[in-house]
């Protein structure tokens, strides 16, 4: 019996891989753990790998939406990767299209997306924080 799903920290990102059948308590614990970890590590992105998840119900679907919404408020981007065809079909049939959650085919592509979108944010935010100091160094390189 697994009582917690491990959440791994990798640089600015948090990685979590769901490899067991989710039951309700596990999902609730996960939500709690994740929000805590995002705040503690000031994570910029969360990657959720569900490639081993074969059974899904409306509760899990809602949980994913919930995690995504909470993370967005905490300024972390969420991407769900590796969804199985059967799971995707089930979610669609349940009417849960996971609006607003980014998805990718595998961890590699998901990671690339996270890096791109986080970098974009930082570049956009940079001129405000360090104004002129950056400009000369860039021309120098």
């Amino acid at each position, binding site marked *: 019996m697994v009582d917690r799903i491990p959440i791994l920290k990798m640089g600015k990102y948090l990685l979590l891989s769901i490899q067991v059948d989710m039951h309700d308590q596990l999902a609730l614990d996960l939500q709690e753990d994740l929000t805590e970890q995002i705040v503690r590590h000031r994570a910029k992105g969360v990657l959720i790998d569900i490639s081993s998840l074969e059974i899904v119900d409306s509760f899990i679907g809602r949980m994913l939406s919930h995690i995504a919404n909470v993370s967005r408020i905490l300024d972390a981007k969420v991407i*769900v*990767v*590796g*969804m*199985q*065809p059967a*799971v*995707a*079909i089930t*979610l*669609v*049939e349940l009417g849960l*299209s*996971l609006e607003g959650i980014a*998805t*990718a*085919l*595998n961890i590699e*592509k*998901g990671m690339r997306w996270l890096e791109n979108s986080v970098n974009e944010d930082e570049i956009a935010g940079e001129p405000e924080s360090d104004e002129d100091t950056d400009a000369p160094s860039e021309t120098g390189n």
Partner: protein
Amino acid sequence: MSVSQLAELLKQNEEQILDKWLSAQRAAGIRFDLIDERNVQDNSRDLLKAVIMALAQDADDFDAPAWKPLKAQLERLSRTQARQGFSASETATFVFSLKEPLFELIQNQSQYDNRVDLVWLVNKLVDKLGLFSVEYYMAGREAVIREQQESLLELSTPVVQLWDGVLAVPLIGALDSNRTQIVMESLLQKIVETESDIAIIDITGVPTVDTMVAQHLLKTITAAKLMGARCIISGIRPQIAATIVHLGVELGDVVTKSSLADAFKLSLKELNVRLVGNAR
């Protein structure tokens, strides 16, 4: 007892009935392009034997177990004929042409005074047999149609890879929920196998789009999106575009392109692939 009488009568005149039955069949026309004389003879002989056997057990009721072997034989025969391409009336004629020789036989038995009863019995019997053979024939035909439908489903939903990371699903023919389900499954499976980012659904060959079809397409697109692949719909004809708008179907943020070529160009652009022509 007329049933046992009839059984006795048939047994005594088996050869004669068979001969007359065969000539009656010949008169009605045998499809020699589908079956040969020997087979017709064997089939007729076997069936007649089975009839006599069933009658000999004094079974008046057609649902009695005594008729089981006869029914089984008839079923096998009709099903094969359905597969071989006989028409329904040809299959029924095989049985119905048994009436004439039997009536003739009874007519000649002047020693019996219950000939009307016997004729009625034969009539009932042959009619039942005829109905059964037609029923089995239909069942055989339906099985053939079902098989063809299944193989058509498999044939008509190919998912092809156009480029590294680009899949295309050329849909041809009417879409129903059954078919869209299969399209959805095979597309999603292929997305996983090839790790494709973009799937182009080409509906040039789809004659009509109603709300159901649009709904199914949207479901497929949403499922693909959940897995992390993007879908482009191409080949929407003017009438279909008008229908979609008229029906008020919300396509949302689904990208649509007029032709497969345009959709392919867009997907190459998204994958940062640039095609360069050779200068001559």
